[in-house]
């Protein structure tokens, strides 16, 4: 075996490709958000940097990089700097567990491999690892709020933490139905199970699970209507009040990265991943480019959910804090539990 045939080189290539994708993806997602916001409010949105503002993310990035770095005097320096890093690291780590393609047969052997799948790591405990990583992201918010040594920041962080741990409960319960129906934690096998039996979204427990899942996702990613962490009319901007320049950009980018990742995750869990819907599947079956069409569909389905985040943000007002907690504990949690029960019945009848 030559040196270049090792797993490590392949992993490095995949890491570079996926890292590039998530960075540019997050950048253009911000553009999509601003354009979307513009059209929702009957204005144009960014349209100066290049045609349709296509270079706007680049300009924003350069602006954030060149701004003067400031460090408030009253903060706890190490934790203050650590917090945005934690946010970004967890966001990128989450991204690394998403499988984007099935195993694709390469037409010729590349670096000693004839089959390849675009996924950095495929742990046996798939979805559980994903949830474990995402549970770390709460530390970014918490540390930012605490280390800023500022009332608004701390209040924002405490709110956000309480919100995230309450909704994490519903979020993790809402996928148990899917895991039961697929019979496996592995994301690949979850998609394969949907290839055989149809999308989980179309089954009764799957639909209920999807509803709970998507509502909890909005809370987890701190988006409107649940963005109480940064309720600007009450808390300035919540936990990142003291952050500026690139440190703020990290929080900002992490939020968009998370949204992209969870959009893909929703598609994997409930909408069959790279599964091609309807009669189209028979048309491409057996073709060598079939899997690539599947990937295209995967991205399209994920794009819909990415758009949903924007759509909801610019359509709904913010909930009050007690309303938020009520929804989480009194409605979503029982629904998630019912969903598990229904998944049991579904499996029994099948």
């Amino acid at each position: 075996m030559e040196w270049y045939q090792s797993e490590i080189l392949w992993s490095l290539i995949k890491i570079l490709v996926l890292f590039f994708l998530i960075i540019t993806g997050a950048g253009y997602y911000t553009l999509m958000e601003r354009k979307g916001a513009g059209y929702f409010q009957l204005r144009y949105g960014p349209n100066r940097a290049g045609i349709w503002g296509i270079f706007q993310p680049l300009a924003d990035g350069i602006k954030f990089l060149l701004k003067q770095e400031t460090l408030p005097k009253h903060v706890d320096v190490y934790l203050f700097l650590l917090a945005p890093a934690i946010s970004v690291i967890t966001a990128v780590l989450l991204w690394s567990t998403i499988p984007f393609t099935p195993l694709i047969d390469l037409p010729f052997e590349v670096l000693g491999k004839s089959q390849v799948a675009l996924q950095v790591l495929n742990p046996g405990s798939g979805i559980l690892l994903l949830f474990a990583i995402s549970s770390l992201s709460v530390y970014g918010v918490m540390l930012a709020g605490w280390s800023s040594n500022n009332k608004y920041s701390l209040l924002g962080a405490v709110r956000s933490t309480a919100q995230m741990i309450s909704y994490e409960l519903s979020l993790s319960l809402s996928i148990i139905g899917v895991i039961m129906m697929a019979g496996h934690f592995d994301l690949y096998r979850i998609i394969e199970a949907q290839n055989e039996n149809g999308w989980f979204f179309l089954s009764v427990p799957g639909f209920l699970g999807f509803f709970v899942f998507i509502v909890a996702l909005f809370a987890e990613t701190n988006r409107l209507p649940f963005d109480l962490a940064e309720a600007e009319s009450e808390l300035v901007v919540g936990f990142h009040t003291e952050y500026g320049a690139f440190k703020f950009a990290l929080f900002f980018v992490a939020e968009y990265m998370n949204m992209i990742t969870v959009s893909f995750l929703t598609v994997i869990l409930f909408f069959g991943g790279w599964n091609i819907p309807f009669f189209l599947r028979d048309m491409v079956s057996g073709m060598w480019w079939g899997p690539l069409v599947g990937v295209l569909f995967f991205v399209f389905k994920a794009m819909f959910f990415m758009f949903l985040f924007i759509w909801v943000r610019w359509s709904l007002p913010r909930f009050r804090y007690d309303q938020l907690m009520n929804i989480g504990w009194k409605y979503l949690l029982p629904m998630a539990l019912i969903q598990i029960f229904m998944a049991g019945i579904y499996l029994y009848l099948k």
Partner: protein
Amino acid sequence: MENIREILFFLFAFVMMGASFGVILHKNPVKSALFLVVFFVSLASLYGVLGAEFLAVLQVLVYVGAIMVLFLFVIMLIAVRDENFENIGANKGKTMVVFLLVLAFTMQFAALASVLSSDDKINTKTEYSKTIDSAQNLTIEGNAEVLSFHLFEKYILPFELISIVLLIGVIGAVVIAKKNRRRLE
């Protein structure tokens, strides 16, 4: 590359040692809690190194994702001040007794360790597998799967009891932490 697991073992072992010293030596409880988070994450990695993948994920999920968040939440809510360590030096006799006690205790473990020679090794590459049905030659593999079979066959009673304990824990926590409204009036 061959002994990468051994290197990782030492790496995480040292991180854990440092983090646990951080927990007991830092004045600020928030920092202590954060050191404990580092401790738990490296412990989870160590489980991974030893090959117990499912437990590693569970460790992060339960300890880091739930328990430590709760700790930090409580510390932030009640705004704990820094502890002053001056009194510890004043009471040297007591501190010595404590150290001796701990030392005597650790000796017990050291005795246990000395019984095992360095040839007794954990084979981290052992795959998990379990034969469900020997007639049909059905086996399952993977950490989570095999654990689940153990959990729901051999340990079903403890599993159910644990759920009752958790329920009691939830109710107890609510009852204890709730403000006594009647007394306030």
